[in-house]
């Protein structure tokens, strides 16, 4: 079983991100359980989305306390809060880089990938709306859990009803996020 914890603010698309991740795993025959946890239940308040994945249906309904993988959509969350709480010793973290925010270094064998998702998104469409998609591409490359094609298929299915232009931008975002990690020296 693998567990993913996404840190974001309500309204930043963490649930959609979790659902696309879950769908990508589902498409390759696995059993994901993706679910949100809201803090203050207000737009902008810190919230989590989780994905738990197994080869058989997931029965455990608690939140994720010891994630294998972390995705931090909003680095400002790391200012007063330790997003690494319970993070597995060999875990992999993907953080949306943000200027002026210092990110605490992970411990031991943990790996941290800083992804300029906002910058990449802006290059593609002039806005930061593709941040989550960039992070999904980065996730696939950083963890090796999903292939680039798996993520492209997942995003294309998810946004298929929104038209070709939207799908194309998202596919490009996946590819750029993926490539950014591949180009990162380890």
């Amino acid at each position: 079983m693998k567990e993913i914890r996404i840190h974001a603010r309500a309204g930043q698309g963490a649930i959609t991100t979790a659902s696309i991740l879950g769908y990508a795993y589902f498409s390759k025959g696995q059993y994901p359980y993706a679910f949100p946890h809201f803090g203050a239940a207000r737009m902008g308040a810190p919230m989590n989305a989780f994905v738990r994945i197994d080869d058989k249906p997931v029965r455990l309904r608690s939140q994720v306390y010891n994630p294998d993988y972390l995705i931090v959509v909003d680095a400002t969350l790391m200012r007063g809060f330790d997003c690494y709480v319970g993070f597995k010793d060999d875990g992999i973290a993907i953080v949306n880089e943000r200027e002026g925010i210092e990110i605490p270094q992970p411990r031991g064998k943990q790996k941290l990938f800083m992804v300029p998702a906002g910058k990449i998104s802006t290059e593609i469409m002039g806005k930061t709306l593709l941040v989550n998609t960039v992070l999904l591409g980065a996730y696939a490359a950083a963890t090796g859990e999903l292939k680039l094609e798996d993520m492209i298929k997942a995003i294309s299915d998810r946004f298929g009803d929104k038209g070709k232009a939207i799908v194309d931008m998202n596919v490009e975002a996946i590819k750029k996020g993926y490539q950014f990690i591949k180009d990162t020296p380890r």
Partner: protein
Amino acid sequence: MKQFIEGSHAVAEIIKLCRPGVVSAYPITPQTHIVEDLALMVANKELNAQFVNVESEHSAASVVLGGESTGVRSYTATSSQGLLLMAEVVFNIAGLRLPLVMTTANRAISAPINIWNDQQDVMTVRDSGWVLLFAETNQEAVDLHVQAYKLAEDKRVMLPVMVNMDGFILTHGMEVLDMPSQKEVDKFLPPYKTTYKLDVENPLTMGYLADPDYYLEIRYMVQDTHKQLLDIIPQVADDFKKAFKRGEGNGLVEGYKIEDADQVFVAMGSVCGSIRDVVDDLRAKGKKAGLLKVISYRPFPKACVASALARAKEVAVIDKSISLGAFGPLYTDVMVAVSSLGSEMPKMSGFVLGLGGRDITKRSIMDTYERLFGKQVDCEFIGLKQELLVEDK
């Protein structure tokens, strides 16, 4: 077809396949996605129903009461404060013997305001005469809704059925499930027909005054139907299993590794999944633990519960609600059931967990297990933060 889908979307989809003619609802977290989807389906003409927008849950319940009284299959969904506002109508729907199906996305009750999951809301209408079913997974939620209409509209029953699913954990949880086809649902659930309805050609009055000469018998008849439901629910569950090739348990309860269990957890809803994991952990350490999942809370399957627990040495009843001033409601019912075992009765402990969305972890379930061997407790809160219990001077 296998899908990866959010619980609320899955419920809306299965309700569409059940072809209700009237849907009325008022949005409330965490039920909103269900009725939003249904409103969209009606607007897109995927579902041939009247979607009636209303200004409150009291009106939503009244509209579907009206729909059902004219002989039209109807549907609504609510949660928490919404269910409380419906309460008056909820009792009427059962008293009028209307076969409505409603989903309750279980959530805590104010005050203080809390949008998160527990099972306190349904307990406020526990005694209303409704059939109360609890889903552990979104697959079970989907399957229970189909069975719910079948049960409700059975001429031997003619009572409303509520399908309970844990708010957020299931309603907002996305998982893999098998969605039946329209053809399969149509085959299992024929169109609803009744002669007992409001009809201008054949006028009748429903729910007219029953004075002390009549009221007692009318209540007795509801109670008697619930007794018969203990046979009817397993029949419907069995028919469902044959038609859809899935389903565990007998429709009333389901046991997990219970045959040789010394310690048994009793619970309802999604927490049963986490308990299964704990049972497996304990089994791996050579401990004979098991789970008894209660699917039908009303009618309460007293005989099934007693026989399932007859062999157990210690029992942990997990309640996600409380009858303040007494015990967890499930604990009280299970106690009555096992009292028939006399001197064979296991040591019975009652625990309250997860109120207001406090996360139920494997650790908190293990806490209940460990307490089974100490002093007997009947209403022990698990996971209390002592530092918050300081009294104001």
